[in-house]
């Protein structure tokens, strides 16, 4: 029986007293930010465990429907992180990402999805500490913001 | 004394290479790239009317007379810090000394007067084997033909006397440096 759900506890009641742990999907570009993430990982800058990195070739590839899919699929927040403007391996991928996130920032907050749940940031290749700080502070901010209300919705 | 050099207009001399003495000094500073390190490192620059850098510039332009009128090279007390720091490795202190010699030889009466101090000083050392301040001062004041000059140096002289710095007279070293001066003269003669 093929089964995507991998945590038996998923159905059962959550551990008593366990605090809310936000689930964050991060779309990171394969060049600068992924290097910073590796750097943060190998030099042990403690990162919150509930950020899942989805490696894209460039932030210019992040389609608005991925961000909507993540938020509707139960992600409490979405982080899009790419190279600084001018560093992009594909010349101008990050400029496109900025416009698409601007469009989503005009649409989704009107439906009660807090604008702080979508974050666009630039992280350079050697900014391991910057990446760790961004991820940690983002996770803390979302943790305090609370779970997104789409998770309970039967309507996907 | 602030740099009172007033802007002058000039037409650089067409062929600058006839005057050998000028050429000799020019060759010392020809490679100057006007970086200003010499002016900046000179402890006496505050008192100079032309900064050393401007002087080298005028020298290269062939403005011999204007250079000789300035006091800059007389104020050089040969501390060699400019030569030490010049990024073009130019013999700047030697150039200042050459200018002093040139001023003493060809300069106008004012320059010759300024050279008197050095000539009397050397003459006194040659005679006495060491500097005899009293003898040297008498000769110098006589040569300067300026009755008021001793008055200016009066207070300084008394202070030196109090400290026992003035050697009053009579010394066992008379004429001892004679052969040295002779040798130098023969060498200068030959060069």
């Amino acid at each position, binding site marked *: 029986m093929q089964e995507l759900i991998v945590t038996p506890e998923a159905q059962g009641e959550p551990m008593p007293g366990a605090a809310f742990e936000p689930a964050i999907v991060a779309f990171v570009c394969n060049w600068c930010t992924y290097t910073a993430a590796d750097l943060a990982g*190998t030099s042990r800058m403690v990162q919150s465990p509930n950020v899942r990195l989805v490696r894209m070739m460039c932030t210019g590839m992040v389609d608005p429907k991925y961000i909507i899919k993540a938020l509707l699929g139960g992600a409490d927040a979405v982080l899009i992180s790419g190279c600084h403007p001018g560093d992009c391996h594909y010349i101008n991928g990050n400029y496109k990402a900025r416009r698409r996130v601007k469009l989503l920032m005009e649409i989704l907050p009107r439906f009660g999805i807090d604008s702080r749940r979508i974050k666009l940031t630039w992280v350079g290749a050697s*900014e391991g500490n910057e990446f760790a700080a961004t991820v940690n502070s983002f996770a803390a901010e979302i943790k305090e913001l609370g779970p997104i209300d789409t998770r309970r919705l039967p309507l996907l | 004394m602030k740099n009172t050099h007033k802007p002058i207009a000039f*037409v650089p001399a067409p062929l600058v290479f006839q005057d050998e003495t000028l050429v000799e000094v020019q060759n010392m500073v020809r490679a100057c790239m006007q970086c200003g390190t010499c002016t900046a490192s000179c402890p006496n620059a505050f008192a100079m009317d032309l900064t050393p850098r401007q002087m080298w510039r005028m020298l290269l332009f062939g403005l011999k007379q204007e250079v000789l009128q300035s006091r800059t090279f007389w104020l050089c007390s040969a501390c060699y810090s400019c030569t030490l720091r010049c990024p073009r490795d130019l013999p700047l202190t030697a150039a200042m000394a050459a200018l002093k010699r040139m001023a003493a030889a060809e300069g106008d009466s004012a320059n010759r007067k300024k050279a008197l101090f050095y000539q009397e000083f050397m003459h006194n050392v040659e005679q006495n084997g060491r500097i005899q301040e009293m003898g040297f001062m008498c000769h110098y004041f006589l040569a300067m033909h300026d009755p008021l000059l001793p008055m200016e140096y009066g207070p300084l002289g008394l202070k030196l006397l109090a400290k026992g710095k003035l050697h009053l007279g009579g010394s066992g070293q008379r004429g001892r440096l004679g052969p040295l001066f002779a040798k130098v003269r023969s060498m200068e003669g030959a060069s």
Partner: protein
Amino acid sequence: MKKEYGALVVGAGIGGIRSALDLAETGLKVALIDARPSLGGILTQLDHQFPSDHCGMCKMLPLTQRDQSSQYCLRKGLFHKNIDIYLHTELTGLEGDPGKFQATLRRRSTFVDPTRCVSCGLCAEVCPARVPSEFNAGLAPRTAVYLPVPHNIPNHYVVDLDNCQRCWRCYEACPTKAIDFKFEQRKDFHIIVATPDERITQDLPLWFKDENFPLHPTATGEKALELLAGGLECGLMLLDLDLPEAEVERTLRRALELRPNLAVVLLVSKDKDGAKNEDEGKDKAVAALFKQGAREVLAKPLKQAQAVPWLDKLFMRLVSDESFSLEVGAVILAAGFECYNPGDNPNGCADLMLYGSHPGVLTSLEFERLASPTGPSQGLLTRPGDGKPLHRIAWLQCVGSRDVKKQADFCSSFCCMISIKQALLAKRRSCGEAEATIFYMDMRTNGRDYQRYRDEAENTAGVRFIPARPHSILPGPDGDLLIQYYDYSGELREEVFDALVLAVGARPPKSMERLALAAGIEVNDSGFCATRYLSPNRTSRLGVFAAGAFGEPADIRGSMIQAGAAAMGASRMIRVYHGPRDETPEAEPEYTDVSRQVPRVLMALCSSCPTLELNVNADALRQRMAILPGVVKVVDVKRACTREGWDTLRQEAEATAPNRVLIGACLPYMHVPRLRELGEDLKLNPALMDVVDIHTASLAGRATSFGGHAACRASCAAGRGEEPGASPGVCDCGETARTDEMSSLLAMAAAKLLGADPSSLPQATPVSPQALVVGGGLAGMTAAMGIADQGFKVVLVEEAEQLGGQAMNLRYTLGGDDPARFMEDLIEQVEKNPNIRVLKDSRVVLSRGKAGRFVTVVATGEGMAHTLHHGATILATGGHEAKVYEYGNRVRKCVLTQLELEQRLAAGSVDASSLSGVAMIQCWRSREESRNYCSRVCCQGALKNILMLKKRNPGLPVYVFYRDIMTTGFAEHYYTEARRSGAIFIRYTPDTRPKVEFKDDKPVITALDPVLSAQIELHPDLLVLSSGVEPNDSAEIADLFGVSLTDNGFYQEAESKWRPVDFLKHGVFACGLGLGPATMRETLLSAKAAAQRAVRILSEKQLSCGNVVAEIRDTLCSRCGRCISVCPYGARALDLDRDKIVVDELLCQGCGSCMAACPNSATVLRGFRDEQVMAVIDAALAVQPAAAAGL
């Protein structure tokens, strides 16, 4: 077995990497070595580079055949199929001749086994040594066992033996036993001590008793030789010079015959009061013995505190270091340069600049580290020491450059631009509040876009440029700096600054003498490698080439072009001596077509790394992975990174015959190259395999301690009063969180693999092995020769009636070469070369196609039209001297341009001796709004003419009005010569420009001399204007080939630093004056670099595209054209006659912008289809962190 390589590249900085890539992409095997333990040279320490103030190193990576090389940030590391990288390795000898060199290399061991080290950092925590870190330019300390560069992957620690205190704590602390000092080999490392001195024979055993080396003291040489003859496994022999002279020499010779690689150390008694000549005798003897093979000298009398560590380190060196030799066709030296250290003496300037004594005085490299997020202050610009934020910063130029007294009569050419960049960086970091001041003599911004960069810094960002040279830097109030300087008008100024950055120049690397000796090349008087002006990429030895900044200090763009030229030289040398590459390129491995099969994923978890078993609930993980959709088997593999581990993986894979393979291991980048092998064995396309890093996840939320869950479980159980080993119960050490994270990482990777597109790639496009070169000037001809000599056909199209172009107007060069004869030889070679077909008086009419398959129509003078099929195009349309119609130029006889003067002097029509005075005006109508760039050649042109004039008439007064003399590199020497010859240089600014009138046909020039602030009036016979360089009209050529131009009409290259001769449109390259103003030397270099880039395409029989490439599902496409405008590489076009949008697989770099622009995914990116990404998002969210699941 001696390894064979096409080329050996010495030095893996950006110059070395560029040369290696340029060669490797043409199919040659390259050995890339570097003395440092890490890749990237000085660029690992620089995060921002002018003129774009951004990094961009990854743009060097290959564009076609992308999957043969690494596709991630170069700071992490480099992998290419044809490049083997040897780090910590030096060249010790080079014999043989071009085509068949024997290079002997010595690899200094790092004492850390790369397959075991998981870079957990425990060894560095216990190491007591503290040494200034080279990576952070001495601003922060590092330990003796350290991580050379934080970003590299795989990131292994390295033991720096020279600073190691041999306390062996790191050896004990290492959890995976990766550090190996070879203790066990001490007992059979026999040491023979041949010395008559009893004191030594008694002391040594005492001193070394706990070092457990077997010692064999012998009184005479013969006894020592007997021991050796008796088969003693001897590692070291100490030979005392107090033995009779002849005996010492005989013993040494015999010993080396018996044991060729025996290390012999001479004991020389240097008693203080010994007579002088006795020492000389000894020195001569020692020198002779050295020639015979003695290794080192140890001064007697020996002291225990000094002898024991010395012997330990010698032992470790002898045992662990290895020396090996390679057979190579050509050698490229790219050892780069080192920054001048103001602190070193004799020629340091620390006393003047308070460097080292005042924390506020930094070198530019230290400032760079301060500004870098991996730097000591995590990128905050604060003063080392008291941490005061840097607000008022001063830069001082030419520290250690342009300084005869410091043996540096050259200009390092990059420090001016670095200072401007750092000033802008400081301003941006402080949102504009920081005040930046640059003290300079000549601001050398002579790159094509550099003048605009300086203007922007000066006018918009507000950086102050002061033409003065501060003389004394004094400690100011509360830790600041007091800087005194005389400004141009002679006023003494004094300002207080927080920090002073010394723009340090370039120095040859410290190992330069050893390298020059080893490679047999000559060094010029400044210590850099000697290259000739008209063959700039060659060193003095045939077959050995100079790349990057090794020949002459150069900025990144210059290094890249030099590296490309060196690669071309090497590639031509290899092809000439090896003949055209006969062996066919290995056939493309054919993979079984699995597109019809249901996806079956084999998941292999590398279970051996210590953190996995301990920190994660491994069996829960395996059980969850087994029920993932598509996963048919989950297997454990022990140490996947070793050969045996890999074999077990292969057997498992052959057994289950999956059509997807997912490996969970540490350091994925190390395994990715291996997938290619696995793919060949399993006949499965490597694109259907993936490696995911589970090691970092296993450490999440846990510092570095390796207690792991077992220890914690015990403590948890104890805490709850149960006896240890009871049922594992709930424990809060985060094990469940880590298991969740790891299973979601694996689930995500599996989901991505499930959606991978198994259909075969679009078939490779055959390449027509011919090149088209447009423009027959110096650049075009050199490029054509470069390609033709490597065995490819070239068509050279020239508009004019004969070849030569602008370079024909030159008569002599600064270095005294004869360009005219050089051009004649070149033209003759080009016209006689069988591979080159020259079409004169002809123009390109039409061109279509893409990299590898261009079709161009060329119309010749007689009206004939040739259609040519070619794989690469080089645009070398060149430029000309700018037309200046002011001040009587072209009207009056007494006004010339520099070029005309040069031609007339050479032809003798201008007789220098008859002249009474010459005036020159530089930067005439250059570096101003209409032509806001420095034309780079006119300063050198002016100096050339001055020196020629002065040679013929030393007394001739020459006055030069200039703004900044742009003589970068070794041309600075001629600026000094010109001044020494008597030329007077008068600086002017755009608003105090010299005025020119004419009185009885003679120019009269009035101008202000800023030094004397006096008006000058000159009456020269001749006025010479430097009018600068303009590109030829290439607008038509540009849009024929689909490339763009800058606003000044030069070619707009893909990236001004990292791809200086490429265009964004792949397959089209540019070189020569068309790219930007350049001297003959630079034109030759850019032409050779462009030739090598073209050969990169022509050397492939067919060009296959990368795995990640865009495809179009035509039925869904409504031809709206949004994907065409959004593609940065112009890889998509609307095919009008078939009314379809088509993708050019070669141009497409797989960035995915088109996919996000298309609303109904009519265009998809292989490997990142919408379903795949959405499945990955689902998998990421499916694993709810336990607490939140039930909400």
